[in-house]
């Protein structure tokens, strides 16, 4: 069954996420990025940051919390989801200690060959409400009857 088109414009409650030192280290190691700025606060300060910063794609972790809310709301199982595209636009980097709030908006739904294409915008803000990052994604939701095809 197609996603209810009236869901367009739906905004999901802000989800908290705290950027921790060990998660940044673990994520950088997992993508094999050995940049010292992810682990050494002194090096990060030389670049003008208050502490170590997270890799550019780290923002996907807080963004996923918003995806989870949206998928639960629309009754979409994870197995039906294909990640089509992803973009991050930064106002400032994610820094260790940041207490983020990510607000997720279902921006558009298009139907293509029986699947739904969802455009999702995630607004990632800091504790003071300052904008940190906008993440935009397109997810393709395969129809239920073909989920196991």
């Amino acid at each position: 069954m197609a996603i209810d088109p009236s869901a367009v414009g739906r905004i999901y409650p802000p989800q908290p996420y705290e950027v921790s030192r060990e998660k940044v280290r673990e994520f950088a190691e997992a993508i094999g990025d050995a940049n010292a700025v992810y682990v050494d606060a002194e090096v990060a300060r030389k670049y003008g940051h208050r502490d170590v910063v997270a890799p550019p794609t780290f923002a996907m972790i807080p963004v996923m919390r918003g995806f989870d809310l949206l998928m639960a709301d629309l009754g979409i199982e994870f197995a039906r989801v294909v990640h089509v595209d992803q973009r991050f636009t930064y106002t400032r980097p994610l820094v260790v200690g940041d207490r983020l709030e990510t607000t997720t908006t279902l921006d558009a739904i298009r139907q293509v060959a029986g699947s739904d294409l969802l455009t999702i915008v995630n607004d990632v803000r800091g504790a003071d409400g300052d904008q940190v990052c906008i993440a935009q994604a397109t997810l393709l939701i395969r129809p239920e009857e073909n989920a196991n095809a």
Partner: protein
Amino acid sequence: MPDTLAVGQVVAAQEYRITRENLVRYAGASGDFNPIHWNDRVAESVGLPGVLAHGMLTMGLASRLLTDWLGDPAAVVEYGVRFSRPVVVPDDDDGVAVHVSATVTDVGDDGLVGVELAVRVEDQKVLTQARAVTRPPKNDTEGVAAPLG
């Protein structure tokens, strides 16, 4: 590194490998435990050619080329990709080779640099529309350490 960047200039190129071990590490670090990224039985049952790399892992690997070049990962202001083709990761010690190269597409009056990434496995593009907007590299700025790796 030349003092000025020119449109069309290839600023970096690198081969990265993804093995099953990398998938396990990325699953743990990112919290994306979808079994198609670690379980052959599940991958085959949903019609996939095998266990696939997380699209976000491939996007993260490709970002290493940028962050190594830039020195400061926070110089990546915008980064977006389209996941055009799955990356199948064989169950062996070698894994799969992902080739990434970065070409300057724009040098703006505001100092920002547009970069297009070519990301391929063998002759197939696995990410398309892989583009970043960055500040210029600062690796050789006085008093700033170069990346470790």
